[in-house]
């Protein structure tokens, strides 16, 4: 019961934040509503016992990426842009694409509802140590190579953004 209530609350935050994000004029307001939406997603993670991802979602998305977004929004002056037309010119193309994708989703979700009924897993006691430890074990054994590749990707991103942001001589 409580879980359902929390689900509705976080779903409301997520979707409401998303809708307001794509409709606000001011880029800063958009960013704030996106933050609300991300917080809602974090809450949904917590609801599904992914407490490590909950913390990472807030630290990385809200504390890192969104702060970076706000930083850039404040660096570039968008006051003029906020007064102008907010949507792209060929809006009917966009609408058609959106309807096509929405229809596809609806169709797949409707026809394949049977596929989502999993056998109820055997009730097993949760492994000792909690979510973070299990995650670490799997990450550093089974997924070691992807992990290393991800760290290489981050290195490339760091070097790339430094070079791009550097003043041209």
């Amino acid at each position: 019961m409580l879980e359902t209530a929390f689900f509705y609350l976080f779903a409301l935050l997520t979707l409401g934040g998303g809708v307001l994000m794509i409709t606000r004029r001011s880029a800063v307001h958009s960013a704030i509503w996106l933050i609300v939406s991300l917080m809602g997603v974090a809450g949904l993670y917590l609801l599904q016992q992914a407490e490590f991802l909950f913390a990472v979602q807030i630290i990385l998305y809200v504390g890192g990426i969104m702060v970076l977004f706000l930083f850039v929004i404040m660096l570039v002056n968008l006051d003029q842009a906020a007064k102008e037309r907010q949507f792209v010119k060929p809006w009917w193309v966009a609408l058609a694409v959106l309807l096509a994708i929405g229809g596809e989703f609806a169709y797949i979700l409707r026809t394949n509802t049977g596929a989502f009924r999993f056998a109820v897993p055997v009730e097993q006691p949760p492994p000792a140590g909690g979510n973070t430890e299990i995650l670490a074990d799997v990450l550093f054994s089974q997924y070691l190579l992807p992990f290393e590749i991800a760290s290489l990707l981050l290195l490339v991103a760091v070097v790339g953004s430094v070079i791009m942001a550097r003043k041209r001589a």
Partner: protein
Amino acid sequence: METVLQHPLFIPILMTLIIIGVFPLLAGYLVLVERKVLADFQVRLGPMRVGPHGFLQPIADALKLFLKEDILPSEADRAIFWMAPVISTFTALSAFAVIPFAPSLYVADVNVGLLVISATSAVGILGIILGGWASNSHYPLLGGLRSAAQLVSYEVALSLALISGVMMAGTLSMVGIVEAQRSRGVWFAFDNFGLMLVPFTVYVISAIAETNRAPFDLPEAESELVAGFHTEYSGFRWALYFLAEYANIFVVSSVAITLFWGGWLRPFPNVGFLEVPLNYVFPALLMLGSGAGSFLLLKNLKSSTQKAVLAAIAVVLITTGLLFLIPAVNQALIGLFWFFLKVAVMVYALIWFRGTFPRFRYDQLMNIGWKYMIPIGMGAILVNAVVGIALANPKF
């Protein structure tokens, strides 16, 4: 009544109420201590008028802030201007939820406790930059941008320093970290042949930058930016920022104490014969000594009401000191005593830094963060990992 006391949510709710109710007062007294200590460094007296030796100054300040006019800049973004200080205060106070003050005195012991504290401080950045932006004025915007860059940079070094400690404990739960130190019989700061002092140093330096304090107080450098991101704030909203700042100071000190200095544990937690001198004699002597000192100060005061207030303080101190000699009370309070004593030492050190070091330039600040703190933090992780494994397996 029994059922209420036994309810699993009783202590968490009680702790929450105490934290929300008492912390503003505690923050006020932190300010008084800071002003007094800084005054002492500069051979001044500091606040002296309100109460004996300025003891009631925080209450007067709070009253003043409540009664001040609440100014809203005409071009400001109202909603965000209103919301930003609330974000700051809310996140700063919610970090208290996972800090263990004593063996069973905490709101929640979650298994990602340390990450929750990181997360709250990460969200707290938003309060600062949004406040700076919403004021729609140049100095606050610059201050907000500066602090965003500073906080994001130093968060990396801070996390690297925390990782060393977490590695020693093998858990992210704050209670679990203290328990790990008890079972190892040594505070983590002195573990690994004292190598853990390196991440602790990195942590303290980054924590000062994270809390925007001197010598890294560039976001609110008075001589350059008026008051930084909160230039346009006044009255109660400004008080909220102030409260958040001092709550953050308290939180970073508590995390340092919990992770590196044993939380509520006494020194040498596993040495039995030190139980009596450290847990009974020391706190009693400290309290009785302070009480006696207050009595000595009585004769310098001229006003009789001030004398009465100081005498009351002295009596309270002496009574507390005597309470520590009763075994049952001692058992209940000693964890709290050690925790707050250590946090007080840490806060004193932070004030000391503020009184000693000149402010860094912005490029120097970034250099220290990226070129020294982050590499040293990473190196500390490597070295501590190797030494920790070598200590755990003597044959290795």
